[in-house]
């Protein structure tokens, strides 16, 4: 019978891959790193949510978004607004002209809480907003673009423009957003002080848990027929359209999903780092996020997580010693990925390491990707091992 004949959405090698990652994040890193370093890893992991979304959106569906920072920021700002309101109780702000509103509003002569901020008094509404606001925004952008068949480079440029617009908007509307400083001085989540070391450790584990849940969602989408349609669309969009699919709906879906994943990362960032600012929204962070996915391997869900950790770890250690050189290093890394190993770390793993490890570590995928011993067909035109539409 068919090798592709499987009922559960995770293949054995996927389960092992996830288990290894979970073991690393839950056991190895907390035991080997001090609290200070572990908090760094926690921060890196929030970007991994974005990279995960990019694997689905860019790797699988071929939609390159250079504006994922917008969604990361929206999620982060939603969470920050809730935390800021909690930190701005009447007692805590009684020295202000208008007590009970966030300090930056008071500095900007705003005398009542804006309507936009009202829902963020409730944690439930905030959590819904973290997921839904970016998804809704992605829906509007995606619907407008994809229904008009804007794609490829044009779409990438538009998302980049969105990132720029969002930054300008946040900085310009200082009284409502905290301006260039962002929303700072966040203290408690429903009375629980998030600034202590123990809280940060707990938040690290929450972040890991959410990331693994999101990885499972990504695997589910990838292994469903929808995942294969995304790959098909990337390859021959017209063929999909003329097979009876409304292609734009699938693109809108995956773009919204990527946006929501990024937003979860953004919200976790705010909780762990304790502030949110426009510097995580703009063009530069958005492009950095694309580099994380590219280095890890844009076709590999787990690869993108490792890519994010690795690039960020390199960034931290590099910029500690050679702050001026980091950007050149990052640029060089991106060029190297594009020219030398287009499928990133995951691609290198697939071609050089997995074949020696047997089927449970992805060796099977490699065998499936190569032509069988007796092909009646012409030999494959490209010899590069496809890191997998699998």
């Amino acid at each position, binding site marked *: 019978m*068919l*090798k*592709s*004949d499987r009922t559960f959405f995770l293949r054995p090698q996927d389960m092992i891959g996830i288990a290894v990652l979970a073991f690393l994040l839950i056991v190895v890193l907390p035991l080997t790193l001090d609290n200070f370093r572990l908090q760094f890893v926690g921060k890196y992991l929030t970007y991994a949510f974005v990279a995960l979304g990019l694997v689905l959106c860019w790797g699988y569906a071929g939609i390159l978004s250079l504006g994922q920072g917008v969604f990361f920021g929206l999620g982060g700002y939603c969470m920050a607004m809730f935390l800021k309101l909690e930190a701005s109780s009447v007692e805590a702000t009684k020295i202000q002209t208008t007590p009970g509103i966030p300090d930056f509003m008071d500095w900007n002569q705003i005398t009542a809480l804006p309507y936009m901020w009202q829902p963020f008094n409730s944690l439930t509404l905030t959590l819904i907003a973290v997921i839904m606001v970016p998804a809704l925004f992605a829906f509007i952008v995606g619907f407008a673009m994809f229904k008009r068949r804007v794609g490829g480079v044009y779409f990438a440029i538009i998302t980049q423009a969105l990132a720029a617009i969002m930054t300008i908007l946040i900085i310009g509307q200082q009284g409502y957003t905290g301006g260039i400083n962002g929303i700072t001085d966040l203290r408690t989540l429903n009375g629980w002080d998030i600034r202590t070391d123990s809280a940060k450790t707990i938040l690290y584990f929450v972040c890991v848990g959410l990331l693994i849940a999101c990885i499972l969602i990504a695997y589910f*989408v990838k292994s*469903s*027929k*929808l995942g*294969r*349609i995304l*790959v*098909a669309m*990337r*390859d*021959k969009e*017209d*063929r*999909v*359209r*003329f*097979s*009876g*699919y*409304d*292609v734009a*709906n*699938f693109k809108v*879906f995956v773009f919204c999903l990527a946006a929501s994943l990024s937003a979860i990362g953004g919200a976790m960032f705010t909780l762990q780092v304790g502030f949110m600012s426009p510097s995580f929204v703009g063009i530069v962070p958005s492009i950095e996020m694309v580099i994380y996915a590219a280095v890890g391997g844009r076709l590999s869900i787990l690869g993108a997580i490792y890519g994010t950790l690795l690039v960020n770890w390199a960034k931290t250690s590099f910029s500690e010693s050679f702050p001026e050189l980091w950007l050149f290093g990052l640029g060089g890394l991106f060029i190297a990925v594009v020219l030398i190993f287009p499928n990133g770390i995951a691609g290198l793993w697939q071609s050089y390491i997995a074949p020696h490890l047997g089927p449970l570590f992805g060796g099977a995928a490699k065998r*499936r*990707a190569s*032509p*069988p011993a007796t*092909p*009646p*067909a*012409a*030999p*494959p*035109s*490209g010899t590069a091992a*496809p890191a997998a*539409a699998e």
Partner: protein
Amino acid sequence: MNTAVITDTMNKDFVLAVEGLTVSFDGFKAVNDLSFYVDENEIRVIIGPNGAGKTTVLDLICGRTRATTGSIRFKDRELTKMKEHEIVRAGVGRKFQNPSIYEDLTVFENLEISYPKGRSVPGALTFRRDRAVKERVQEIAETIFLADQLDQRAEYLSHGQKQWLEIGMLLIQDPELLMLDEPVAGMSVSERKKTAELLNTIIKNRSVIVIEHDMKFVEDIAHKVTVLHQGKILSEGSMAKVQADPKVIEVYLGH
């Protein structure tokens, strides 16, 4: 799509009625006031010199290009107002000139995506590869000579096999009108023979429009031939009649 029910309830003479169809690209009329009718279960071959507008006619029918004026009625539904995927769901299948298949997916997955179920976003997320799907894919794979290649990535197929795969992807949708753009172009002699065989088995219960340059092949399969020239019909009728038409000899066959 239940073909039997539709054929029973339908007493229209024509499956496809194209009337007064014109499309102009910046003033150039690629198709000019074209009218033709395709019967149920008919194989119609469209021939004509390069630039005659053959592919444009297929593009217009399947909604890839929008008509400037004129109407295309398929089983009494006006196609010129419908979106591409709605036209497909109405029962029109189209094969492109170059094999248009998903190279990164296996033959099985290529056919499965074309299986007419779970075409919405939630439908695709919850789509299950059940028995009916597997049996249908197997059946189609046997028809298109690819039954032992189901797990093969499509990029490793030969050119001819890719053409068959795309035909199979259309068959699995069971369209009532099948449009094929040069199905034997670039094929070897033996592949060509097999393709003619294939076409003869798949035309049952459906109408087919074929664009083809290979005269031997046209002779083998055509019920009726339409000759296009500069966006207009030059001649129409049986192969023998068309071949004897002096106008046709002048612009096309005589070359």
